[in-house]
């Protein structure tokens, strides 16, 4: 596709709060895949590259990476107010929902019907997350060295279950080295 994309919209403060509220409430299997879906595909506030860079920084900082990314996205569009609105939306809805679930759990324990539905949703959510990773890789078109770093990250964290701090901090120098090589290449 060679045509120029239309100019990307800029969210208002209320947009940020409500959109992150939605991301939080539909975020089965973790926030990140859904945040990409909504921010990049539906709202077009960020490109795939921008979203992935923000999330990458969110992962090297301590703390929940989806939260770190939300703070950076909020700050990018609306400064301090945005950095509060985005995470407040992201946590608010699910927190209320979780309080309700905690009450139900205390009262009813584990109902077989509920477990069956959750198992089906869990399997579908896993596919949603895997499909997002495939889609991002396709869109970002990483050069081979960066692709290799991504594959190692997948194998280390997914197959060998290495603790995430080792995976993230151990691979970061290789990723940065690969990125600087790719930059110098013609």
């Amino acid at each position, binding site marked *: 596709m060679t045509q120029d994309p239309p100019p990307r919209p800029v969210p208002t403060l209320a947009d940020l709060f409500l959109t992150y509220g939605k991301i939080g409430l*539909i975020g089965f*299997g973790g926030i*990140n895949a859904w945040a990409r879906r909504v921010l990049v595909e539906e709202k077009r506030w960020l490109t795939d590259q921008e979203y992935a860079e923000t999330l*990458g920084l969110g992962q090297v900082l301590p703390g929940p990476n989806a939260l770190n990314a939300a703070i950076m996205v909020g700050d990018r569009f609306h400064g301090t107010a945005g950095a509060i609105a985005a995470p407040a939306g992201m*946590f608010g809805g699910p927190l209320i929902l979780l309080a309700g679930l905690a009450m139900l759990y205390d009262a009813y324990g584990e109902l077989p019907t509920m477990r069956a539905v959750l198992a089906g949703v869990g399997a*579908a959510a896993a596919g949603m997350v895997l499909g997002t990773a495939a889609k991002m890789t396709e869109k970002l078109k990483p050069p081979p060295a960066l692709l290799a770093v991504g594959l190692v*990250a997948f194998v280390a964290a997914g197959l060998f279950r290495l603790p995430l701090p080792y995976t993230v901090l151990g691979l970061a120098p290789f990723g940065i080295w690969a990125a600087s090589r790719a930059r110098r290449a013609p």
Partner: protein
Amino acid sequence: MSAALFWQLVLGFGAISLVSVGGGIAVLPEMHRLVVEVHGWMDSGDFARRFALAQAAPGPNVLVVGLFGWHVGGVPGMLTAVLAMTLPTSLLAFGFSRLRARLAGRLWLKTIERGLVPIAVGLIAASGFILARGTAEWWLPVAITAASTLFVWRTDHSPLWVLGAGAVLGLAFL
């Protein structure tokens, strides 16, 4: 909620949050140590069931600390645990975000950001794989995961469709 409990939650989860590089779930073993071994707030089975409950619900994975807080101190315990787990690192991320804006356009920062991208994507793939392995007890969940992967990868339709289909299939067959 007693003052002693309040400070145990604040200091316990606050300390854990500061070492949670790579995400809140990376420190699950640390949480187990705090909640089960140090304070004896619940046993290992209860810990695992509450973790599964938080995983099944939508929202940030780190909200599982809210369930631990709920267990020991009701709503105040829930809010205390979540804030202790998120506030210190949020301030750090905000400070970093400001620094990043000031350094925007520097070539070395751009290079670092590009270098972290594949790690971010690789870890998304890893979390999908771990989720899939948790549900893959026989062929149907595996088939649901595979179909959902293709649907989300190859089409631009909302992933809520596959979640709905997963719920219906789960109800009917699992």
